[in-house]
């Protein structure tokens, strides 16, 4: 243990690593603050810049962007009623009214303190549970992994949008696309149609950039630019520690809600923020103040939102299964460096995991510093108009897609995936299940075929023990719950809180 820690310390302790986390948080905060740029888009655009870095450095940069992005969304939510990220839409409820009362600085401070505390709690949860879960997952063989991935994909498909069926169709499309290339066992061609560029399959990064950045740009071409909410000039005084302490109970509750929802694949920040907010209102002595500028509302929303950041890394690091698009990108970053998160990584490369943990803990401190600076300086960044922003984003996409393999074909893949993503956007089919299924597709198929090889083609191997049964039961249960809530939504006409984003 001590030996591993000292190797990890050597791996982590370099000026480059320490700087890169701060840069990541800074970039993330700016991207999060810009309406129209989402955190996944930011992480995707940052990915090509990490190719030449050491694995730990590159992954820490992406984690910094992730954490900064989650917080950055609240800046513009509070100041101009325009959430930088979907999860920040909950912060508007009380943050914007506070700003309108001339107390913007107080709202921003409370949002920052709540984010930092939640981030720290979430990081500690990651450190405590990831290793434990990984040790448990060492017992997993191919059938267990197969059922685990089926379960994860079902949840992701179910909560990514209002309709389970559309989510599953999206995931199936991702699985189908993942089969392009050489067959894993026999080495024969699949869907190559004579194009040798397709032999190694479609690269993950052009697919990701195409799905997440291009459709936004195409969609904006048809939309009227919306005027933001009015911004009051006076920001008022900051929040005192006593004021923050009053909200601490909601912050801790929200952080735990974030941790639990974050650890379940697919749920993400927005539902955690809304659930944390509604719990804070339910437990408040003055629920009538919520929505009118209650600092506790801001704190609860931000705590829920940032509480997921460390927890989403638990299934990724321990099981190798990403819970959302951002962790899927981080999985991609691992794979680029020839690493595969999961129990084996814990067994064989523990110092690297510890080094990542050190960096993750440092990111909470950076969040505080960058947040303090951000409040003073770059609330204006958000005012970059989309007509300038989107051409810049597109250029970054082109350079990023090319840099993966030094191949122009990847730019074509990106554009085609952009069209697919745009069609899905128009048909309101969620793209997150598509991407995550695309990343997990080879792993799912590989585990399926390995299981059958082990059992000589006997399908009963997929119910060989209690773990398999547990995952099948959880899958069936989640399908049942999702279908029931869909039928209910049809009756009442309202979508449930778990399907409003994330």
């Amino acid at each position, binding site marked *: 243990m001590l030996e591993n820690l000292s190797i990890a310390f050597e791996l982590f302790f370099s000026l480059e690593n320490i700087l890169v986390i701060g840069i990541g948080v800074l970039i993330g905060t700016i991207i999060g603050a810009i309406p129209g740029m989402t955190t996944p888009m930011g992480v995707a655009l940052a990915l*090509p*810049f990490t*190719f*030449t870095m050491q694995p730990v450095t590159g992954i820490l940069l992406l984690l910094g962007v992730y954490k900064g992005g989650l917080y950055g969304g609240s800046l513009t939510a509070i100041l101009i009623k325009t959430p930088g990220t979907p999860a920040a839409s909950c912060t508007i409820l009380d943050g914007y009214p506070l700003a309108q009362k001339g107390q913007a600085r107080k709202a921003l401070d409370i949002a920052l303190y709540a984010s930092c505390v939640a981030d720290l709690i979430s990081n500690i949860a990651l450190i405590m549970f990831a290793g434990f879960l990984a040790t448990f997952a060492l017992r997993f063989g191919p059938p267990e992994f197969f059922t685990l991935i089926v379960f994860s994909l079902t949840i992701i498909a179910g909560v990514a949008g*209002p*309709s389970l*069926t*559309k989510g*599953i*169709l999206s995931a*199936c*499309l991702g699985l*189908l696309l993942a*089969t392009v290339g050489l067959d894993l*066992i*026999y080495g*024969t*061609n*699949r*869907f*190559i*149609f004579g194009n040798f560029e397709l032999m190694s399959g479609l690269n993950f990064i052009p697919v990701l950039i195409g799905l997440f950045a*291009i459709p936004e*740009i*195409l969609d*904006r*071409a*048809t*939309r*009227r*630019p919306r005027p933001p909410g009015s911004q009051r000039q006076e920001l008022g005084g900051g929040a005192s520690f006593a004021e923050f302490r009053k909200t601490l109970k909601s912050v801790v509750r929200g952080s735990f809600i974030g941790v639990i929802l974050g650890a379940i694949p697919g749920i993400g920040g927005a539902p955690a923020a809304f659930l944390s907010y509604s719990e804070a209102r339910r437990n408040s002595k003055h629920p009538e103040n919520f929505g009118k500028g209650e600092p506790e509302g801001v704190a609860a929303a931000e705590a829920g939102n940032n509480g997921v950041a460390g927890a989403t890394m638990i299934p990724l690091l321990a099981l190798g299964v990403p819970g959302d698009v951002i962790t899927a990108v981080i999985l991609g970053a691992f794979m680029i460096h020839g690493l595969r998160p999961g129990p084996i990584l814990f067994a064989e490369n523990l110092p690297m995991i510890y080094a990542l943990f050190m960096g993750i803990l440092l990111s909470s401190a950076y969040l505080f510093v960058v947040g303090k600076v951000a409040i003073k300086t770059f609330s204006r960044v958000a005012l970059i108009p989309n*007509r*300038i922003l*989107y*051409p810049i984003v*597109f*250029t970054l996409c*082109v*350079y990023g897609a*090319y*840099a993966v393999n*030094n191949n*122009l074909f990847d730019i074509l893949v990106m*554009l085609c995936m*952009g*069209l697919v993503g*745009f069609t899905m956007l*128009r*048909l*309101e089919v969620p793209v997150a299940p598509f991407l995550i299924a695309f990343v997990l597709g080879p792993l799912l*198929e590989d585990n399926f*075929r390995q299981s*059958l*090889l082990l059992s000589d*083609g006997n*399908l009963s191997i997929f119910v060989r023990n209690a773990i398999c049964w547990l995952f099948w039961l959880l899958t069936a249960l989640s399908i049942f719950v999702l279908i029931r809530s869909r039928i209910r*939504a*049809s009756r009442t006409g*309202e*979508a449930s809180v778990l399907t409003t984003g994330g």
Partner: protein
Amino acid sequence: MEPTKRRDLLAGAMFLILGILTLAVLIPAGVDSPGNVEISALSPEFWPSVIALAVMFVAVCLLAESYFLKVPELDAEEDAEEDAMYKLETLPGTLRTVVLIFALFLFYFALTSLGVVASSIVLMLSMMLFFGERKWYFIVPISLLLPILLYLFFLHVAGVPMPLGIFETLL
């Protein structure tokens, strides 16, 4: 019929057609199978076929869902009327999208001869104009500097030389 219902029925129909096409055309034409596969579930076409069947099954479920159930409203478009006015005042939305898609693919074919940097400069400039930016002191410096700075970054920091096409000989 409500537009959301029509949209979901369209999505269901498109996925159903995709599933049938994959099973009937793409898999037979695109998947090479070795002759001697002992366990049929291990053959290269088994997994894509299972996915295609799942697509067809779930697409039928989506069709039934859209036909029989109401679509829950997430965010009602706040001011659809103003949006419609905007679309009338500028180029109609669909036409603008088609123009943009066409321009992006044209950009890809330009890349092969003009290289990444020059094509990006032209594209950024035209995109900013297309999206409605008119201030030249934003348009010119950004569209010139960004592609060049990115080129230099990727060349010197990441060690990736972006293709310069016909401009390669000028350097």
